């Protein structure tokens, strides 16, 4: 399919992808305000936590790989990731 065809795309469908046949969570966009909140939260987050989060979510590494690369136990990786995730959710929630 060619890009030049300029598909008629309904922006609302991209943001509200739960219309019709069930929700597709991967289609949900991080709104600009939320993105800023996430960036602010990451800035103030303890480094150990942040590194694990970035490796997992941004770089897509498995928790096992992260534990090998950082030389820490897998439960320690899980714990740091969980703390980061809780913090980031709270940050976007305060929006």
């Amino acid at each position, binding site marked *: *399919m*060619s*890009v*030049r065809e*300029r*598909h008629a*795309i309904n*922006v609302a469908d*991209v*943001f*509200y992808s739960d219309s019709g046949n069930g929700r597709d*969570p*991967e*289609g*949900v*966009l*991080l*709104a600009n305000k*939320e*993105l800023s909140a*996430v*960036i602010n939260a*990451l*800035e103030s987050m303890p*480094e*150990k936590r*942040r*590194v694990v989060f*970035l*490796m*997992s*979510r*941004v*770089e*897509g*590494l*498995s*928790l096992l790989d992260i534990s090998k*690369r*950082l*030389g820490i136990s*897998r439960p320690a990786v*899980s714990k740091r*990731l*969980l703390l980061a*995730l*809780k913090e*980031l*959710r709270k940050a*976007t*929630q305060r*929006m």
Partner: protein
Amino acid sequence: MNVRDETKSSLPEELVDEAMEWLVRCSIDNCSEVDHQKLELWLQRDDAHREAYELADLTWQKLAQLPRSQCSPEWFGIQPPVTPAPDPALIQSKKAQGWRRPWAWGGASAAALVVVVWLVGAAQIKPGVTLYNTQVAEIKEVMLEDGTLLALGAETTVGVTYTDSRRTVSLDRGEVFFDVASNPKRPFTVSSAALNITAVGTAFEVSRAGASVDVAVVEGIVDVASRSQTSKEADVRLTQGQRVKSVGGALLSVETVAIDAVGAWRGGELAYVRAPLSEIISDADRYYSGTIEIMDASLSDLSVSLILDAGDTEGLLNTLETVVPIRVSRLSDGTFLITRPYEG
């Protein structure tokens, strides 16, 4: 734009926290069969549990859209970034300067130009640091006073610090191909995120996106050392045809790389060997004045090998569409969205 906020809810915080624990244990990590069954039971026990889990999952999905380019180097607490030069006089575009191959000017004039920039730069930014910037879709070559050649890719910022005893270049973002003039008495080091990369008379490329740094060697030997406190990996020595990637200071395994592919972007080409789609899009984005977004996080890791024309964003996306299962849509404001193809 009115985006409904699904991460806000009336669910008790403790329940969402509990759901997040399950998510990390069983969705993000691989949990045991027993744990899986426990999760199923927990989800079935209460609709609120299921709702909390969906909320946790939604948060995780949203966070996948955090672009690498937004990940500040300071997040690793290692190296403050050099402030990008606000003064357009510092930005020597090839066209504006009538700049061809800088070495054709001869050493003296190249050195003179560097001095001018250094004086202007020193007054405004940091003593001794010369900044070089490129804009979207701009490729620039810079000859330093010692004959070392830097080729800067698009949206790249480097700071050059030369003293009598050492030559240091900090790469804050983007990609640079180095052709280093050998001088063992004045070691040449590139610092980028959590890495120190040391070369003696060699040609190599360093590219950086957020905390992720890639080093590839075309000629000679390059030592790559991590400055990160969090890494226990050994430092590595790269030789011709080798590359290594680092994430937050942790070095991944050394891979072989086709020498022709390294720095191919200098000729306006982007070359990839088994690269994730997210990396290609991140690069293409730097050569495009609008935005290119991957809408479906599961597409980010699609593996792609090909050579693309950096300047032709539409053609580049067209090519990608034919080699990997994606669909590219263009919005009226010039934004490109990458989604899964239509079913059937």
